[in-house]
């Protein structure tokens, strides 16, 4: 049994060391991929050893070094970070399997750099998940942007370069211009940036300053893709699909909403935000902005013909569910927010896996080309259908559970705007996912001859990966105990 402190250090070091090993093994692809899988498995093992500690209510902590006098790089594992780390490291294994199939199936260039950056991205993600103070979170947040940039621009084409420009400009722009001043201000006001139950700003700022600071944080965390800072996410779709799947459906975007929830709970404090208001709560505007993002992004998704673009806008919309649920500030909705981080992760990664499988096997990228594809790729499109149900929020998929909590929370708080947004967006979700499923299974394929080479499923590692995550979507519906238990451990989620 490894001590908790060492487990934290290992969780950070394993992917970083793995990256070096992958770089050294660049000449031997089989060895390189074996190292990737091994690193992923080791990482999950490290993260898993922390779980019992956290469930007992302990907060294993580790302080490394002083970056600016008074500010340490420090880690502390609490339930939310535990859940995020479990999701990211667990899905990394599946995603690595998928990557191997995808990168080889499409004969991609510079595969070594790809796997190295992927491992580094996971190291940065672990840093975010376990960050013990806002400063540490910020450092790893920036690191994650930088190490994912080579992945986004992997193809090295002009399109990739332009996508990379938007990616970097929005993510770095928001974090430097908005989040960094917010961070310095928090330190200036509170004298600390340590994540503390109940918040560190309680009673230190008036409502106006609190609302302003909240705005700096929420828009500053550009990875949460709150409109108008969502453009980077569709731009990042130029990346190879495994990147879109793990990073732009799980690690990077979840790092965004994770940071949002973390800041709301541990920096501002739920009660602090709920009480100090001008008649309403300080976070009321946030419900409005995120609600608008949910609906607007869904409308854009409805019109998008490119499959990955549609999925990207769906992600923008789904991320704002989490932000909105956090901004409603009642225990039920907060549980919903945490659950939705897990639910959306397994669902959306499945959808991207399926999109990548379709591209690899049939070279199709547009929704309008998918007629009848379900007949040739039943496993892939079956998994896609299940994940689509999760996005819409229908049983038997885990999306239903998280939506249930969010809806009950919004009703309990009598936030009728939030309730309306959830209902409308559910309809919109159905509107842009069900036609794909319908086309795939019930429309006859286009006349043979135009693209008429016969194809079946994608390479087996990809199919195994996407079936695994689809299965997880269903399993989590029936046994959501673990994420629920962790969500209920979060301060502010117990009914007073």
């Amino acid at each position: 049994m490894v001590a908790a402190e060492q487990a934290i250090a290992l969780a950070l070091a394993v992917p970083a060391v793995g990256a070096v090993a992958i770089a050294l093994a660049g000449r031997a692809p089989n060895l390189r991929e074996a190292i990737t899988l091994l690193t992923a498995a080791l990482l999950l093992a490290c993260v898993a050893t922390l779980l019992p500690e956290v469930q007992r209510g302990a907060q294993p902590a580790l302080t490394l070094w002083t970056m600016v006098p008074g500010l340490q790089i420090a880690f502390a594992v609490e339930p939310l970070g535990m859940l995020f780390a479990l999701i990211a490291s667990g899905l990394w294994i599946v995603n690595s399997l998928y990557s191997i199939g995808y990168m080889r199936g499409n004969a991609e260039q510079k595969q070594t750099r790809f796997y190295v950056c992927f491992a580094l991205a996971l190291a940065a993600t672990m840093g975010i998940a376990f960050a013990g103070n806002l400063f540490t979170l910020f450092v790893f947040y920036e690191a994650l942007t930088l190490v994912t940039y080579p992945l986004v621009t992997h193809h090295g084409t002009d399109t990739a370069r332009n996508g990379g420009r938007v990616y970097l400009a929005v993510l770095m722009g928001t974090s430097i211009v908005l989040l960094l001043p917010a961070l310095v201000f928090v330190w200036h006001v509170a004298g600390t940036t340590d994540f503390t139950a109940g918040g560190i700003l309680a009673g230190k700022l008036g409502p106006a300053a609190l609302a302003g600071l909240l705005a700096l944080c929420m828009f500053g965390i550009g990875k949460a893709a709150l409109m108008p800072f969502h453009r980077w996410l569709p731009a990042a779709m130029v990346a190879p699909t495994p990147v879109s799947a793990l990073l732009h459906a799980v690690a990077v975007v979840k790092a965004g909403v994770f940071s949002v929830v973390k800041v709301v709970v541990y920096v501002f404090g739920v009660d602090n935000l709920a009480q100090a208001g001008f008649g309403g709560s300080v976070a009321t505007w946030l419900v409005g902005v995120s609600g608008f993002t949910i609906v607007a992004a869904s409308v854009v998704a409805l019109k998008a013909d490119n499959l990955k673009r549609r999925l990207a806008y769906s992600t923008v919309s789904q991320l704002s569910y989490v932000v909105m649920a956090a901004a409603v500030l009642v225990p039920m909705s907060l549980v919903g927010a945490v659950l939705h981080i897990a639910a959306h992760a397994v669902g959306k990664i499945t959808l991207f896996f399926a999109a990548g499988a379709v591209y690899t096997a049939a070279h199709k990228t547009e929704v309008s080309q998918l007629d009848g594809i379900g007949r040739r790729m039943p496993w892939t499109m079956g998994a896609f259908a299940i994940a689509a149900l999760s996005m819409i929020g229908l049983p038997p998929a885990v999306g239903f559970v998280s939506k249930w909590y969010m809806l009950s929370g919004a009703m309990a708080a009598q936030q009728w705007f939030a309730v309306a947004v959830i209902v409308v967006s559910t309809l919109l979700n159905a509107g842009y996912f069900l036609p794909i499923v319908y086309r795939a299974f019930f429309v006859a394929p286009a006349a043979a001859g135009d693209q008429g080479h016969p194809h079946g499923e994608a390479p087996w590692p990809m199919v195994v990966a996407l079936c695994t995550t689809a299965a997880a979507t269903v399993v989590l519906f029936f046994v959501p105990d673990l994420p629920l238990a962790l969500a209920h451990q979060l301060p502010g989620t117990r009914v007073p």
Partner: protein
Amino acid sequence: MSLAAHLPALQVVVPLLAAPLTVLLRRRDLAFGVALVASWAALAAAVALWLQVESGGTVSYPIGNWPPPWGIEYRVDRLTAFVLVLVAGVAALVLPYSRASIEAEVPPQQHYLFYTMFLLCLAGLLGITITGDAFNVFVFLEISSLATYVLIALGRDRRALVASYQYLIMGTIGATFFVIGVGLLYLMTGTLNLADMGRRLADVHGTRPVLAALAFVTVGISLKLALFPLHQWLPDAYTHAPSAVSAFLAATATKVAVYVLVRFYFSVFGHSQVFGRLPTQEVMLLLALAGMFVASAIAILQTDLKRLFAYSSVAQIGYIVLGLSFDTTSGLTATIVHLFNHGITKGAVFLLLGGVALVMGGTSLARIQGLGRRMPLTSFGIVLCGLSLIGVPGTAGFVGKWYLILAALEQGQWWLVFMIVASSLLAVAYVWRFVEAAYFREPRQDTAGGPPVPWSMVVPAALLVVATVYFGIDSSLTAGAAARAAADLLGGLR
């Protein structure tokens, strides 16, 4: 007295005497050997002095045993020691680098003169820093400047001559303004010793000649430190000088000028006089901001990397001066720590560019296309330094920016906070000009045959890059020293 007691004198005398020795020896290998020993001895002296000051407080050394204020005093306080370590440290790294670098850029018969001038420049910069005498500052300023003009003129094409001439004119005007200011101060106080001058100025506080002296000193030194819009000489000088010279100047020359300004503002005039009697704060603040934005914007438009990073220096000097204009401990800490961090960052960039010039035959963006494939480690190093210029956490550049933002917040100046962070975005833009050229373009065919960069150039550059990252990850050493120095400066005369 033991050797240790004479360290302040040795600090300057060793490189100063080594300079004529290199002329007498004439053989370039011997000259190199002498210069190397002298520069490493200077570094050893600087580090020893730093340790001495951090443990035992300010060191005062009367030259020729004439007690101050009659004799010349060398005075080492925390700030002095900090700057000495920077200057001597960079020199000790650039010198071994220069041997291979000037091979390609300077005619062989001039090599020994290069070392002579390098040593004179080093002695001048160290002298400016360590001396406690106003006129002595001027003398060393001239020694370092004259040596610098020659060093720049050694550049490989004829434009170097124009650049050197430009700098000569501007530098001389600056030095003249400075000496007029010193003259006025001498007139009013009857002393040239800086500490004594500071005490006596209290009696003539705010009189017209003193304020005139303040203006003259400010303008003169601002020319030397390339404060916008007095920066016109800098881009040409950095672009056309030999690579090793660009690196040394970028890392030290402007930084020492900043040191002089800080010294005169906080130890001689006293901040109440500097910021209370004249709108110094407003002027410095506006010029700093203008530099941060205009120079960064110009940097984005450049097509040559040396020029691009030269304009970036003007912009970064804006940050350094901005910190000073706050007149608070946090602001001054930002100035001092950024002076150091930007020094090592920019030194590293220009050292790496020297290698690039050697292999690719130039540093224009068109020529370095595909650098990421041809020189992966060098490109990565430049990217790391670029991140430091942007101020990404985990690099040295972040620390200074942190203190700057903190200083602006302490005064409730939110607009300034946003100006500081917005200008960082311009830095992203110019750094990404390099990234896109290096990683998104195919290498040009005519740049194929360059020789590999020799180890003597790789190691110093790599050390500075590592330092850039190290001082970003653990800044307790640099930021701690800077904060203590700032507290000393503001505490002494409050």
